C-alpha cells in the first residue's frame, strides 16, 4: 500500500479482508441474510412494542460470535413510561 493511500486514510487491505470475512461468516454460519436480519428486527420491534414503549429508531440487533458459536444480541432501549395520572395543580 502506498504512502499516499495511508495519508488519505485508506485502510490496510488485511483489515478489509478481516471485516468482510467476519460478516460473510456470520451469514454463512447462521444461514441468515442481511435482509432476513432486517425482517427479524422489524418483527421483534412490533412484538415488543405491544407490551412496552420502545425507541424503535435505536434498536440494535447483531449476531456476535464467541469462538464458533453465534449469539443474537438485541439492544432495545425503552422509552420512559408516561405517567398515567397527572397530578392536578
Amino acid at each position, binding site marked *: *500500500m502506498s504512502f499516499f493511500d495511508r495519508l488519505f486514510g485508506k485502510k*490496510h*487491505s*488485511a*483489515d478489509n*479482508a*478481516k471485516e*468482510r*470475512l*467476519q460478516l*460473510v*461468516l456470520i451469514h*454463512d*454460519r447462521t444461514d441468515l441474510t442481511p435482509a432476513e436480519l432486517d425482517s427479524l428486527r422489524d418483527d421483534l420491534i412490533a412484538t415488543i412494542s405491544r407490551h412496552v414503549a420502545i425507541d424503535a429508531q435505536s434498536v440494535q440487533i447483531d449476531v456476535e*460470535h464467541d*469462538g*464458533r458459536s453465534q449469539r443474537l444480541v438485541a439492544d432495545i432501549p425503552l422509552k420512559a413510561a408516561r405517567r398515567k395520572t397527572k397530578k392536578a395543580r
Partner: protein
Amino acid sequence: MPAQVITITSGKGGVGKTTAVANIAVALAADKSKVVCIDGDIGLRNLDVILGLENRIVYDIVDVIEGRCRLKQAMIRDKKLPDLYLIPAAQTRDKNAVSASDMTRLIKDLRSDYDFVLIDSPAGIERGFRNAIAAADRVLVITNPEVSAVRDADRIIGILESEEKGPASLILNRLNPALVKSKDMLSPEDVLDLLAIELLGIVPEDENVIIASNRGAPVAYDMKSRAGQAFRNIAKRLKGETIPFLDLDAQGSLWERIQRLAGRK
C-alpha cells in the same frame, strides 16, 4: 498401536492439500513412522506426481474396492523411504466408484500394520469429501490467508462439526510474512480469530515447493527450505511433540539475515 487415520481437506481447491499430504507423509516416514497415504481424488489423481511415483502405478484404489487386486498390490512403496506407501486414485473413473463404507473397510485393513494413514481429500463438500472423512480419526483443514479460502475453510469446519468429525485442526499454508508485516495479508492471528479452531502449523510461501513438485521430491526432504521445516514440524506435532511455531519474520533484522546466510542460525 493402531494407525491414526488423518484426512486433509480444505473446501476450496488449490490451497495445497496434496502438497501437504505428500510432505507430512514424507516427514513422518523419514522420522521412523510407517505411513500409507491415500489419494481420495478419484478421477483427478495428483498425489502420485507430487510424490514422484507416477511411473510405478499398476493398480489403484478402485481396483482394490472392485476386487481386481489385493490391497498390498495397489500399495506403491516410495523410492527413498521404505516405510512410505501410496494408494493411488483411479484416473479413469469418477467419485461414484467409491463409497464411504468402501473407504472405511479398506482403511480398517491398514490400521493394524501402520502408524499413520493420511487421506488426501478432493476439493468441494460432496461425495469425494464425504468418503475422505468417513474413516478419519482426525481432520486437518488447510487454508491460505485469503478471503475465499478462509470462507470455504469455515464451511468445511462447520460440516465437520455437524458430522461429529471435529474438532478439526488448522494448517495455514502459503503465508507471506512480508505481506503480513505490511498488513496486506491476513495474519495467523486474524485467521485463527475468524475460524476459531486449533492451529497445527503455519507454512510460509516458499518457491522451493514448486521446485520440489517439479522434481517429484517433496520439499520436506529439503533441509534448508522453510516450508520443508514447517511440514516437518507439523509431522512432529502429529506425533504429540510440542514444537514452537516458525518465526514468521522471514527477513528478520539485517544482522539475523547475515547470520542466516553465514549458516549460523
